[in-house]
């Protein structure tokens, strides 16, 4: 056996280690913020500026003042830390401005239009007051559902080919590249594609819901492929090998082991893709058009959808402009609420289907 006796410990230097540093109190950023706002307010009083310049002045004072104070008390490293923290919070705030103001505007302008009748009536025979978006909600639901039914099988199966069978061969690489290109296709081009396709088949002036669903699935398939591909790549190869070692054929391994393991992520991806295409306007405008009455048959005739309803309400103008604008805001609020619900649903479903550890 080796001698495990420890060698004698080296003598520590006599000087004590200094682990303390002067620190700003915890409320220092708050104080700096209040002081900066005060300075901004003072400038506003003297120069008579509005809200935005005041905010900018206050921000500049805070941005210079807090790091300077920190540098004086805490030293260089802490000062840089405070500077970078300020930058991070500022950019976060900037990113939140459009989101918050959008939700604020939509709710503020849209809530007055919301009523039972608004959900329960179509626009048939309505010019001025009254009317509703019943027909547009149904149209959006039908067309988005059709697009989902078309895109999900194609997208998921394509991703399965890419990850499980195509392992980096030339075809798989080409498909991945084309999917990436498709992700960037402008939605109006997808609409034109569907329009051209059905004009070739059924002659000019064709308008129906399935055309819109096909245009939307052109936009949706690449998103579904991408999301599913990433999720399938996350499934460890060890699980596939464990399944093969039990004598399970490849297709059954994919269906019974790989897909269930990735299911939560795939459903989340699909739901987000639905939310993404539910608000598309341009392709539906071209191939579906809009109408004032309820049309439940996607294979025949124009259908109203929420985005196109909003667009046409705002652009109609004329005598009843005020009513049209109010209905447009109401429809916008409903559309935002639907998209938000779909996002929440995606998180919820993702959590339910995630593999459980039992801990």
């Amino acid at each position: 056996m080796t001698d495990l006796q420890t060698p004698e410990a080296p003598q520590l230097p006599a000087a004590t280690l200094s682990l303390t540093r002067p620190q700003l109190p915890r409320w220092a950023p708050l104080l700096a913020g209040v002081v900066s706002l005060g300075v901004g307010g003072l400038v506003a009083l003297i120069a008579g500026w509005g809200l935005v310049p005041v905010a900018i002045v206050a921000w500049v004072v805070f941005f210079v003042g807090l790091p300077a104070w920190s540098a004086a008390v805490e030293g260089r490293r802490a000062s840089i830390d405070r500077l970078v923290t300020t930058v991070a919070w500022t950019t976060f705030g900037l990113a939140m401005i459009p989101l918050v103001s959008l939700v604020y505007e939509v709710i503020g302008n849209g809530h007055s239009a919301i009523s039972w009748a608004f959900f329960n009536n179509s626009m048939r025979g309505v010019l001025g007051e009254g009317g509703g978006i019943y027909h547009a909600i149904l149209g959006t639901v039908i067309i988005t559902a059709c697009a989902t039914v078309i895109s999900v099988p194609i997208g998921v199966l394509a991703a399965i080919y890419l990850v499980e069978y195509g392992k980096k061969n030339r075809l798989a690489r080409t498909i991945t590249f084309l999917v990436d290109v498709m992700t960037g296709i402008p939605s109006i081009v997808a609409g034109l594609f569907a329009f051209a396709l059905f004009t070739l088949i059924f002659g000019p002036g064709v308008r129906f819901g399935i055309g819109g669903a096909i245009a939307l699935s052109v936009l949706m398939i690449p998103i579904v492929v991408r999301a599913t591909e990433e999720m399938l790549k996350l499934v460890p190869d060890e699980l596939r090998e464990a399944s093969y070692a039990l004598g399970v054929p490849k297709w059954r391994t994919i269906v019974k082991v790989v897909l269930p393991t990735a299911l939560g992520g795939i459903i989340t991806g699909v739901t987000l893709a639905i939310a993404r295409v539910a608000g598309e306007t341009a392709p539906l405008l071209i191939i579906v058009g809009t109408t004032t009455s309820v049309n439940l048959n996607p294979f025949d005739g124009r259908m109203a959808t929420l985005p196109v309803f909003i667009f046409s309400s705002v652009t109609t103008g004329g005598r009843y402009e005020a009513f049209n604008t109010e209905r447009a805001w109401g429809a916008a609020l409903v559309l935002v609420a639907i998209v938000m619900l779909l996002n929440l649903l995606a998180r919820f479903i993702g959590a339910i289907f995630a593999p459980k550890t039992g801990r």
Partner: protein
Amino acid sequence: MAKSIDVSDLNIYYGDFLAVEGVNMTIKARSVTAFIGPSGCGKSTFLRSLNRMHEVIPGARVEGKVVVDGQSLYDPTIDPVAVRRQIGMVFQRPNPFPTMSIYDNVLAGNRLNSKRMRKSEADAIVEKSLQGANLWNEVKDRLDKPGMGLSGGQQQRLCIARAIAVEPQVLLMDEPCSALDPISTSAIEDLIHELKSSYTIVIVTHNMQQAARVSDDTGFFNLRAAGKPGQLVEFNPTKKMFTNPDNESTEAYISGRFG
């Protein structure tokens, strides 16, 4: 129900790279055969070639013969899926299926092959396999809990239960104890001793004491030189291997004077 395996002139490639060269050996039925050797010398690669798991990796291929029960495994008429049903495998890292309960994990081999069975039959298989893997007493009250919730050692025994639930002829184990503590290791070694009476067991291990404890025959793999393919240096009964090996490098490796 156990079978012996005859390997002759086996060369294993990854693409153009020759990983293991010229292996000849006979693995006896109802015995434990251990493979030892330094990392990267092709023990695991060789093990995986015994049930055609090797070819799961793109570009991997094999030359030579592996004969089980008179049938050459690499014959074009052989179905790799059928081979893997007869020759089970336990991996280095425990890999229970995360979406399944303990109960379903044990039955995975049967269920995934869509074998229909009655509930009583399934219960019997689960109990028998878990008892065989020495895990029944620890999990019998929580069979419906996820398999991922068990400790590492329990997960590994769950994987062994899953492998023996399909009643293979041969059980291949690729460093089954390398991620486990000494107590779980000893539980699995006891298990190997018990399984020996009904299965042919082949185990890869980095632990020389483990090879000495559990195996009847031992094969020593080594690289001829850095960058050269791995080869089987010596294959002998374990007793002879650890007391009086034929080859000098075997003795050097076993006694720790390696390289």
